């Protein structure tokens, strides 16, 4: 199996031209990938054609959602490979792995944003960070996702036409606009909302923190769903279940110390819990918002 962005993949693609048939298959792949269904095909030419179409579409929501799904798909495949194959792929993607550890700069570039991967909780010594095989594969997935989000700008008329057609099809099913009720948010929450606006894929703990905050701030399920709809892998049923779970368990907004340990703190507000934001003066709020 060829993994995108590796030398072998580039070599295999050499000389491929974009035929109408290939464009057609790329279209299918976008539609299925968008829905989280993976077409079981390893044809890298289709993947490359898909990137051209997405490059012509330039819709952050669709692109990020596909990047999440596609990278998961590839990492599931990579998980079945032998150790040395995994290491070789990692290396090609800029993750320098050997003897159970990766170099610190490559770790910083590739580790997902979650407390589990926060540098502070890792074994770091002499510029190396210990990671397990499973973690290495997760890091490969993260790099693939980021690389998939970087697209060439395509202006070719035929491709743009196909791109617009698919975009219309996909968006008729989904909410595309970000609706966030106006509110007075602390920098940590504001920063998450800004990420969602850009359809970024937030890690689990960030989603959890944001949901608990919004629930405690009195937002309705409908309001919260309207925000979460913008996540590239949004599933209404699961989100709703989790919001209701937060309500049932009456979870309180975590303290600033906890938010900090999640790596989500964005400014030194001088409060102990994000819910206390409202007590600060308007002047201080403005200064902190600008800092965050």
């Amino acid at each position, binding site marked *: 199996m060829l993994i995108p962005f590796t030398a072998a993949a580039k070599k295999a693609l050499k000389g491929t031209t974009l035929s109408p048939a290939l464009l057609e298959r790329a279209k299918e792949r976008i539609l299925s990938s968008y829905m989280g269904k993976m077409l079981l095909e390893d044809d890298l030419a289709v993947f490359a054609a898909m990137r051209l179409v997405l490059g012509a579409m330039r819709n952050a929501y669709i692109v990020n959602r596909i990047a999440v799904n596609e990278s998961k798909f590839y990492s599931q495949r990579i998980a079945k490979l032998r150790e040395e194959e995994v290491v070789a792929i990692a290396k090609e993607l800029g993750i320098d792995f050997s003897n159970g550890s990766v170099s610190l*700069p490559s770790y910083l570039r590739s580790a997902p944003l979650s407390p589990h991967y*926060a540098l*502070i*909780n890792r*074994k770091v*010594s002499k510029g190396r960070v210990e990671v397990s095989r499973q973690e290495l594969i997760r890091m490969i997935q993260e790099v693939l996702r980021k690389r998939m989000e970087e697209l060439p700008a395509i202006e070719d008329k035929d491709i743009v036409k196909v791109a617009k057609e698919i975009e219309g099809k996909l968006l008729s099913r989904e909410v595309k606009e970000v609706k966030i009720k106006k509110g007075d948010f602390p920098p940590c929450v504001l920063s998450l909302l800004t990420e969602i606006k850009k359809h970024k894929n937030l890690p689990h703990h960030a989603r959890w923190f944001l949901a608990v905050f919004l629930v405690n701030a009195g937002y309705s399920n409908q309001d919260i769903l309207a925000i979460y709809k913008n996540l590239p892998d949004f599933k209404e049923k699961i989100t709703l279940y989790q919001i209701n779970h937060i309500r049932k368990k009456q979870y309180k907004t975590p303290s600033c110390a906890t938010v900090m340990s999640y*790596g989500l703190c964005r400014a030194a507000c001088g409060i102990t819990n994000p819910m206390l934001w409202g007590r600060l003066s308007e002047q201080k709020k403005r200064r902190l918002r600008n800092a965050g």
Partner: protein
Amino acid sequence: MRAEDIFKSYYRQAVMAVEGVEAREFGAGWKKKIETRHLAFRDSSELRSYLVANAPFYLSHSIAYYRYPSARPMQKKEWVKADVVFDLDPPVKGKYDFVRYLERMKEDAQRLVEDFLIGDFGIERSYIEVVFSGSKGYHIYVKDPEYQLLGGEERRQLVEYVTGKGFKIEDHLFFEDKRLVGPKLGEGGYRGRVARLAKERAAALVGEEEKDFFVGGLAEGNWSRTSKNLKKVYQKVLSFKDALSVRSVASDVMVTQDLSRLIRVPESLHGDTGMIAKRVNDLERFDPFKDAILEADRTFKVRFVEDVDESLLGGPYYEGEVRELSLWKALLFVLKKSAIFL
């Protein structure tokens, strides 16, 4: 005598040797830190001409290297890379409080360089540059090419790591069948640091007579080899928190994540103190009051306009008093608006 003339004559002969001078954006200020920015200089002599002509009290340059450092807006500058800079910045309040922090800041700088940058991060010493800020702290530059390409989020992780943000000893030390289990001595990162600190402070934890036995257990992550009450040992270990990290590193998002921020230029004069933002080669021996001051072969007469009670600066001085002082002290008191030149 005016402070401005002293700055001018300093810049006439100072060797600034700014690395990448042609690729950095400069900012200058007289009454405050940055009144004008987007300045760029082709080389050191162009920079010198500017400094001698304008004698700014504050001079800063970007941590970033740009293709077009004077272009505006920012995107047009075309960012190439940026030094990773840790800003050791103590929380001082009064005008002269900083002199009381200098020793502690030096210790923090040493710990940051030896334990964190070299020990944990494995950065080569030749890529690390230590600069006295000219006032209260230090700027530690990392010029490793791989680090210079890191993004804001990645830099934030590094700062959080050295400040210990989010690290809880409780997560790594716990009771298992009434035994205390924790990190091993040889481990990397914060876990190893906790264990090593326990070894260093073993006598305080379990007493002089048991300390060797206790330390023997730490090698395997066994924290129970003592006759002392384990709950008390546990509580004492939790109080290590402050000794684990370098807390004086500025961790404001503005400072850590901004890839375009400006920072005081090494070897420039600090307008609040008249001291030199000196590059430090031997941190151990560095003494700001000897190595980062302006010298002259005569004394300067000043009149104090307020009381200054700081013994480390030869005080107390009283309002109305006229004194003959060495250049650097005279300049310091004048810039702090405690005295005027006569």
